[in-house]
């Protein structure tokens, strides 16, 4: 059924279609309308679930961990400070191998307070063992939430579905919401092999000595490796069912491309328009959108980018003291290519704290890169130097 949905509502519809049984969440802008929609679904009886209205995000994930350990399909959502508060339990959920799905609406970290988008909140959770998937449209959001449960429950790892604040979370788009019967065929009820069960009284999370701890962690790594293929399969199966699939990476106009923009989230949609513009100018530009970030589709990325002249990685995030985080990741993956096939990798940090990334910005970045004018290794785009900022501040006063 076609509906006009903002990204946040698309999350809620995805969760409803997946028949989540326990939801635990705490309000935070810009995520809040996800859980408002879910509270309404539960109150109206449209979703048979228990909604635990906890007193913090830390408790939201703790309740999800408890419920998932008892075999329920669970959901939570958060942003920025909320995700940071969850951090201890983000590690816990992955270590406990629980198929939890969490939607994070990318929001910049304080201080100063910002409710607007950037990716440092989710990327700070990179090394926790969670899978991470970055969406670029409301349609992709609803489809990805359902896919996420299927993958999570197959490989027993939690998934973070990531959407940009406002550009996606609060922008209305026409979305095809799949029929419940189709989704039910795709996603059977959860039957967790090991769970809290008084008929089979096991212990979960006990003390583990050094002679065994590493094996548990190795199995997380193995599950991530397996998950790459599972994502492909699940995405393919979803495509056969509803006619939409996304791949792990999205390639746009890579034929004969020399300069390629690589990014994640909604800047990729903007980037496509910029690429079209550059092609009209006769510049062979292309784009790659990173959809799945963990596990990292390194082999696929190498295949796509092998032999290209240069890749510009646009990061709406930064690992201070080094590069943007996607930039580091792409660079490290491409190092595996033989030198003659290895593109130059440039980084651009842009759009932190929700600053606009426009078509004009991306076209200018690609143009500069194509002419060899973009500084290596990293350019902070559209940012005032400290002395310029001091002048701007004095004028404002």
């Amino acid at each position, binding site marked *: 059924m076609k509906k006009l949905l903002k990204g946040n509502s698309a999350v809620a519809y995805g969760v409803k279609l997946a028949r989540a049984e326990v939801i635990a969440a705490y309000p935070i802008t810009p995520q809040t309308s996800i859980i408002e929609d879910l509270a309404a679904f539960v109150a109206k009886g449209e979703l048979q679930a228990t909604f*635990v209205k906890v007193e913090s995000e830390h408790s939201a994930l703790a309740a999800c961990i408890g*419920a998932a350990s008892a075999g*329920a399909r669970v959901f939570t959502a958060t942003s920025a400070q909320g995700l940071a508060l969850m951090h201890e339990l983000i590690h*816990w959920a992955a270590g406990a191998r629980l198929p939890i799905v969490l939607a994070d609406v990318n929001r910049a970290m304080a201080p100063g307070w910002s409710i607007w988008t950037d990716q440092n909140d989710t990327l700070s959770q990179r090394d926790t063992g969670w899978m991470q998937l970055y969406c670029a449209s409301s349609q992709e959001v609803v489809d990805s939430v359902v896919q996420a449960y299927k993958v999570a429950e197959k490989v027993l790892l939690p998934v973070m579905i990531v959407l940009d604040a406002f550009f996606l979370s609060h922008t209305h788009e026409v979305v095809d919401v799949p029929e419940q019967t189709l989704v039910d065929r795709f996603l059977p009820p959860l039957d967790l092999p090991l769970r809290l069960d008084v008929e089979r009284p096991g212990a*979960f999370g006990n003390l583990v000595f050094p002679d065994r701890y590493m094996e548990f962690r190795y199995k997380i790594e193995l599950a991530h490796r397996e998950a790459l293929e599972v994502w492909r399969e699940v995405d393919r199966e979803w495509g056969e069912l509803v006619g939409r699939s996304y791949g792990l990476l999205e390639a746009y106009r890579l034929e004969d491309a020399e300069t390629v923009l690589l990014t994640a989230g909604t800047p990729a949609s903007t980037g496509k328009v910029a690429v079209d513009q550059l092609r009209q100018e006769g510049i062979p530009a292309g784009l790659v959108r990173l959809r799945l970030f963990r596990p990292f589709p390194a082999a696929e990325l190498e295949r796509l980018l092998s032999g290209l002249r240069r890749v510009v990685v646009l990061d709406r995030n930064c690992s201070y003291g080094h590069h943007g985080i996607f930039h580091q990741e792409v660079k490290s993956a491409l190092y595996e290519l033989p030198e003659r096939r290895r593109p130059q990798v440039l980084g651009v940090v842009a759009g932190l704290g929700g600053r606009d990334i426009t078509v004009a910005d991306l076209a200018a970045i690609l143009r500069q890169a194509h002419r060899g004018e973009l500084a290596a290794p990293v350019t902070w785009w559209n940012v005032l130097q400290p002395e310029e900022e001091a002048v701007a501040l004095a004028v404002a006063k």
Partner: protein
Amino acid sequence: MSTNATLYDPKNLHLPDQELLRSGHLACPGCGAALGMRLALKALGPKTIVVIPACCWAVINGPYPFHALGVPVLQVAFETAAVSAAGIRAALHMKGRDDVAVLAWAGDGGTFDIGFQSLSGAVERNEDIIYVCYDNEAYMNTGIQRSSATPFGAWTTTTPEPDTKPEPKKNIVEILAEHRIPYAATASIAFPEDFVRKLQKARSIRGAKFIHLWISCPAGHKSEERLSVKIARLAVETGVFPLYEVEHGTRYTINHEPSFLDVTHYLELQGRFRHLTPEQIEFIRQSIRWEWQRLRAKVAMGESLPEPPVPPASHPRPS
């Protein structure tokens, strides 16, 4: 104490036979937490799921792949015992397993301090869980550091002499009772029948139940292992730790009238109190008297109040 001779005779104890604490657990000799768990599972039986945050019991249950209990256990993060239990309850409810009890079993640090927020949240929502705080009055698992459950004047490694703890113990039961939960109570390992009865009563009530269990800790209290039950009994009989229960934050019942032995009988068996001056002991004596006056006033208040109003059926309280 002679008036209580029959109460203290183990041959006169009437307790369920079932044993769900198995041999091979890792508790120290004389550990009150092990005895407490043994009694708790006698009371609650095999249809129980136990939630254990960071605390001594996170070790006592045994390292992977061992498991000392005959019931399922979920170990959780330090500050999450109550809300993790609530999550399990939500899952069980969705699966039609309201017959299974969910027991959160946390130490004083995980209850009075770091777990307090999630505990307050869970009981405010009146989650259908039984929460037992087994209280040895300090962070014993990390090597005896003060918590807000540590009593006035006690030595710990972070309240060394002469800087022993200046503040009194936080009154956790009163705080929980003020959430107006259906059931809050104190209990002692030296009064096993009382503890078992309270757990069974808790199990019969829908909603949030809280039991504050006083336990001995030879390693942390600097006491003899063989005296663990005696010291727990003296905590009650000197009036240091009253046994009582509170229903809906209002109805107070004192479960055992102590003989009010002088508190020195209790203090002198524990090295953590060895340094106390006569003035400090006199303050403890006066505090016990004052706390009992306060407790009896609460009993009288509960008796003088009418039944609280009942919300309309369209908004039923979960209890």
